[in-house]
């Protein structure tokens, strides 16, 4: 952020920005919407246009001391107030304090006969009156679509809208105009042609019964911006955009270490374990001890008095506690002491973005030093692999910025080359531990090796993972298997 500010300083007078106050959006746009200009927000019904616009006004009024006018063409003041009350916005109070002016514009075409020339001065008068009444700096027109239904002569309407946008510019008002998406155009009536400075498109897609919302900055004059689609969330905290990656990789790489919870495994990593704040991937087929390894890591962290957050997508917390007791891990005591927090979610309970939102919020609340995502495979099943990848990039990024050490477990299937299954996630990970089954001489055993571990001289040996009632440990080096032959054999 500091860097971005420095960079934009010389051009500041050229292109001032007005913050929206929406988490993520201001980051994406390098500070907000173009100040004193009209921005267009378009998308299909129910995509979140109105909410974005309303948050722009509410945050402006509360956080930035900029009163705002909302000219609404679709909903009455009462309805609008009720709609956003669930987000904790008290429009009535803001209206009373002259920080907000709501004007519901209702057009009933059936009542209207046209008889001669006219213009839309009535709209101008109303807007000017509202702006003057509260000394507004921000304006929302939501949505101008309705005017097209109400005014028969679209050529008059078009020229009047252009005049309206110019009027907003001339009065140095930062405005959001919303419009419905067309079939092949951004907006149904091609309004994007009139708005030169900033166009944002919202989208709400349902893929395999799970919905994702996306935001795209179509154009933003004078500002470099990502043209990618950015997922966004609408939850009880309102509208937030989650940038796929932050613009710069600025998180500090820590040099201090954190024990894996197994002294013999620490030995394989220079005797010290993982780097703090790094991301660890544990892959393996069913029953190879992935969860046990992760749970053991949290046990060790709790024993040191560190906070742990365990996200489970497969088993309930009590099931995990019971299972871990059977391998000598008493996690219950740490839950009782408030050091270990579980969060169980069904992968299909919400879209990926929903999961990401929950994970973000809990991490921000609990502020753990260790996070377990068990297993990340179940999240992958809810969506296409691209979505998972982008979500994981964001999650890993977030964890690193928060300096949280994280373990992701990933189930691989027998016969699957694990390099492929884990391809989506492995490149993001600092350390990759592989677990596998093997049956030499008919005796089944679990094997462990470190496929990679960035920034350290780690062992390349294959060791037996011993899971017993007294916990986890590693056996001696298995000389008959080396990583090299294993990979070649795939």
């Amino acid at each position, binding site marked *: 952020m500091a860097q971005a500010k420095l960079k934009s300083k010389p051009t500041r007078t050229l292109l001032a920005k007005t913050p929206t106050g929406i988490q993520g959006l201001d980051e994406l746009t390098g500070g907000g919407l173009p100040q004193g200009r009209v921005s267009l927000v378009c998308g299909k019904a129910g995509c979140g246009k109105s909410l974005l616009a309303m948050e722009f006004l509410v945050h402006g009024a509360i956080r930035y001391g900029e009163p705002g006018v909302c000219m609404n063409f679709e909903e009455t*003041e009462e309805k609008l107030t009720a709609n956003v009350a669930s987000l904790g916005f008290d429009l009535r109070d803001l*209206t009373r304090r002259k920080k907000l*002016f*709501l*004007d519901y*514009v*209702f*057009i*009933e075409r059936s*009542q*209207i*006969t*046209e*008889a*001669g*020339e*006219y*213009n*839309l*001065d*009535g*709209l*101008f*008068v*109303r807007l*000017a*009156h509202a702006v003057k009444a509260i000394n507004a700096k921000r304006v929302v027109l939501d949505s101008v679509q309705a*005017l097209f239904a*109400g*005014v028969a002569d679209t050529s008059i309407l078009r020229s009047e809208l252009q005049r309206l946008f110019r009027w907003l510019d001339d009065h140095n008002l930062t405005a959001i105009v919303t419009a419905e998406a067309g079939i092949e155009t951004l907006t149904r009536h091609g309004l994007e042609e009139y708005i030169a400075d900033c166009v944002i498109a919202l989208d709400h897609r349902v893929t395999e019964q799970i919905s994702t919302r996306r935001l795209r900055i179509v154009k933003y004059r004078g500002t470099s911006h990502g043209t990618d689609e950015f997922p966004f969330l609408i939850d009880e905290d309102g509208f937030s955009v989650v940038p796929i990656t932050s613009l710069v990789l600025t998180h500090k790489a820590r040099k201090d270490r954190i024990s894996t919870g197994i002294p013999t495994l620490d030995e394989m990593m220079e005797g010290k374990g993982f780097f703090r704040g790094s991301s660890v991937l544990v892959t393996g087929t069913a029953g190879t001890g992935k969860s046990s390894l992760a749970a053991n890591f949290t046990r060790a962290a709790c024993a040191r008095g560190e906070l742990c957050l365990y996200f489970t997508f497969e088993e309930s917390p009590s099931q995990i506690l019971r299972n871990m007791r059977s391998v000598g891990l008493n996690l219950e005591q740490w839950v009782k002491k408030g050091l270990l927090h579980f969060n169980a979610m069904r992968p299909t309970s919400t879209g990926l973005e929903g999961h990401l939102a929950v994970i973000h919020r809990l991490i921000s609340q609990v502020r753990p030093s260790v996070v377990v995502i068990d297993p990340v495979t179940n999240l992958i099943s809810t969506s296409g692999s691209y979505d998972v990848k982008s979500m994981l990039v964001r999650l890993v990024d977030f964890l690193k910025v928060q300096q949280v050490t994280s373990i992701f477990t990933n189930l691989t299937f027998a016969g699957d080359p694990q390099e492929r299954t884990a391809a989506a996630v492995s490149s993001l990970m600092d350390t990759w531990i592989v677990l596998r089954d093997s049956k030499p001489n008919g005796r089944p055993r679990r094997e462990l090796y470190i496929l990679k571990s960035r920034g350290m001289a780690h062992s390349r040996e294959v060791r037996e993972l011993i899971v017993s009632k007294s916990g986890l440990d590693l056996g001696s080096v298995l000389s008959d298997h080396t990583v090299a032959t294993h990979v070649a054999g795939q």
Partner: protein
Amino acid sequence: MSGRGGRATELADSGRKPGNGMKKTAAKKRSAGTSRSDFFILRLYIAGQTPNSMSAIANLKKICEERLQGKYRIEVVDLLVKPQLAKGDQIIAIPTLVRRLPPPVKKIIGNLSKTDSVIVGLDLQPVR
């Protein structure tokens, strides 16, 4: 932001003191025989003395004199003077003529140069 109550006050006010943005141009006394439902209360919204507004006033007077003699009242509201009145009748287009009485409320937008449309819009009887 005033609701219906606020509007009613404005009307009563304007009845007492004309001018101040609201002026009555042609208010003839109702003849004894005219029933309440025949009486037209027409409100014309304008925004400043623009050519369209001026011709709307002239056109309206002419039509009323020809067809509603003695049975109408015209109120002209200049929204540049009283912008808060735009909301009550949901005014967007200028000029807008609102037939407040008899019910139902009807709106005609434009400079009223299309006499036929005005007559249809106001539900007026053809001249005998």
